[in-house]
């Protein structure tokens, strides 16, 4: 790293700064721990650059303000944590149905219910299965470092515009608080589709409507298929992942976000004891990189999924491998962050059990 360009930054601030530099014009949000530093950062920073920061009266109001801004044609973002994200599901469903771009940050905390404010990965289902009502999907990025948090937040604004979709950044309580060195860079300009759907007054053009009510069942079916084609395109183009020491791995641990960092530490530990173990880290959890997981089955006999939950992504892994390999699970829900030592002991246990 070039140390001149590198600065120390908190995850929440990195999200805010990336959004500002991605051209986010409006931030609407409601305080909830552990992501309060995001609205705090934005309240200061958006004022500096002459843009809109508004603390809504609720998560519901905030996501609907985002919807209004998106329909007006500007880049808009909201952030929250698990219980707040539950409240935003109504808005997310509407954004998906209306095909409006928006960026939603979820700093996942322990649940269900009020839960706690510790880091958790219990919102995987909610994030990757749409979350709200109706037949929709949403790209979800799961960063594992503060640099990735910055990069993917920035990139997600483009993804949102290209596909006209809400995009979620799925972090956790640790990612929001963690301070790490990052390089703060400007957004790379790319060609984006024209925003020919926005509402800004029907001046010398026919009036436009943005809506999701489609009473005619055939039309509704066609709209669903249209969305499906879009999701299929995303499934082809968006999946991202990282592989670490998988080439000769007999056992592959699969984890995302904070869990993947810990898993990587564990892989290094067991490697030093001669165990041929690798890490597969989905970067997009929707679309899930299932083809890459499937091709791993040619090399590795045993998959071990590790999540900070009781097991949600493991379903996607099992779907991807279709029974070709053993797929085991280890989880620590409720806000526990296990140490790399703990995970390396789990790996060693399976290594023995499976006689690898």
């Amino acid at each position, binding site marked *: 790293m070039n140390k001149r360009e590198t600065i120390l930054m908190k995850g929440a601030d990195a999200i805010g700064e990336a959004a500002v530099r991605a051209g986010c014009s409006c931030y609407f949000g409601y305080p909830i721990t552990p992501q309060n530093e995001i609205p705090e950062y934005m309240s200061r920073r958006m004022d500096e650059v002459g843009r809109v920061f508004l603390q809504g009266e609720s998560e519901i109001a905030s996501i*609907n303000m985002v919807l209004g801004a998106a329909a007006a044609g500007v880049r808009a973002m909201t952030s929250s944590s698990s219980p707040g994200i539950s409240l935003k599901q109504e808005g997310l469903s509407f954004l998906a149905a209306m095909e409006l771009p928006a960026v939603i940050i979820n700093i996942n905390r322990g649940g269900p219910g009020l839960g706690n404010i510790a880091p958790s990965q219990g919102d995987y289902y909610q994030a990757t299965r749409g979350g709200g009502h109706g037949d929709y999907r949403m790209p979800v990025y799961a960063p594992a470092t503060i640099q990735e948090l910055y990069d993917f937040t920035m990139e997600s604004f483009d993804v949102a515009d290209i596909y006209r979709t809400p995009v979620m950044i799925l972090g956790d309580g640790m990612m929001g608080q963690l301070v790490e060195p990052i390089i703060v860079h400007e957004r790379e300009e790319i060609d984006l589709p024209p925003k020919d759907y926005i509402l*800004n007054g029907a001046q010398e053009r026919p009036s436009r409507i943005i*809506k999701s009510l489609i009473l005619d069942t055939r039309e509704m079916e066609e709209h669903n298929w249209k969305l499906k084609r879009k999701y299929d395109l995303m499934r082809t183009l968006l999946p991202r992942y990282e592989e670490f020491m998988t080439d000769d791995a007999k056992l592959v641990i699969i984890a995302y976000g904070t869990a993947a960092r810990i898993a990587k530490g564990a892989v290094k530990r067991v490697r030093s004891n001669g165990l041929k173990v690798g890490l597969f880290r989905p970067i997009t959890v929707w679309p899930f990189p299932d083809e890459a997981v499937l091709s791993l089955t040619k090399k590795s006999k045993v998959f071990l999924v590790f999540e900070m939950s009781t097991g949600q992504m493991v379903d996607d892994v099992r779907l991807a491998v279709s029974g070709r390999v053993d797929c085991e699970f280890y989880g620590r829900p409720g806000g526990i962050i296990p140490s790399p030592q703990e995970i390396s002991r789990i790996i060693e246990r399976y290594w023995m059990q499976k006689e690898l």
Partner: protein
Amino acid sequence: MKKIFSRPECLKPTPFHYCPGCGHSILHRLVAEVIDEMNLRGRIIGIPPAGCAVLAYDYFDIDMCEAAHGRGCAVATGFKRSRPECIIFTYQGDGDMAAIGTAETLHAANRGENITSIFVNNAVYGMTGGQMAPTTILGQKTTTSPFGRRSNVEGYPLKITEIISTLPGAAYVARTSLATPAKVMATKKTIKKAFETQLAGLGYSLVEVLSPCPTNWKISSIESFKYLEERLELEYPLGVMKEVTTEKGS
């Protein structure tokens, strides 16, 4: 012969789906006439509710964006904050505004959000089939208050306009009725005044319009207009509740 009354330009030539004698139809026309007269078509954005007027965008020939039930004022806030040059109005029924969307409405008003809400109060849930509304008056029978609304069971009718008028961010708050031709024309003037308030950047404006619902009141159109004037206007007095004429500082 000179034509002195015809369909306003920013209403599409689409027949309304509303029931015979419905106040929404009259009110749509009034809003459209005001948009025409103030020459706002090129800069106005309307936000219809979930409820009977959910299909308002089938009629208005202006930019319109749907909002989830009750979220009109939040969506309008997003619009206005990102496009302050546009005129933004929500068109909301009593369920939308006074039940599920109370928080959004109250806080938009209290922030002095420079938007206009047109609040259609017919004291009943129309779209879903005549259930009790927050504005249903005591004694009024609906499909979910079959014995007539009782204060000790269903509580009291909510007077959103009076509440909003106490908020410092609200600049123009008025209640009108569609009961007679004179009141219909007064309603139009009030809507105009609300848009002017927004144009002047004075803050939140709200026009509550008492409106008949013959179908769910289960009476004839003619009777519904009488009920409107004799009963609803008694519970909900007409008039301008608040009018601010100068911009407030921060």
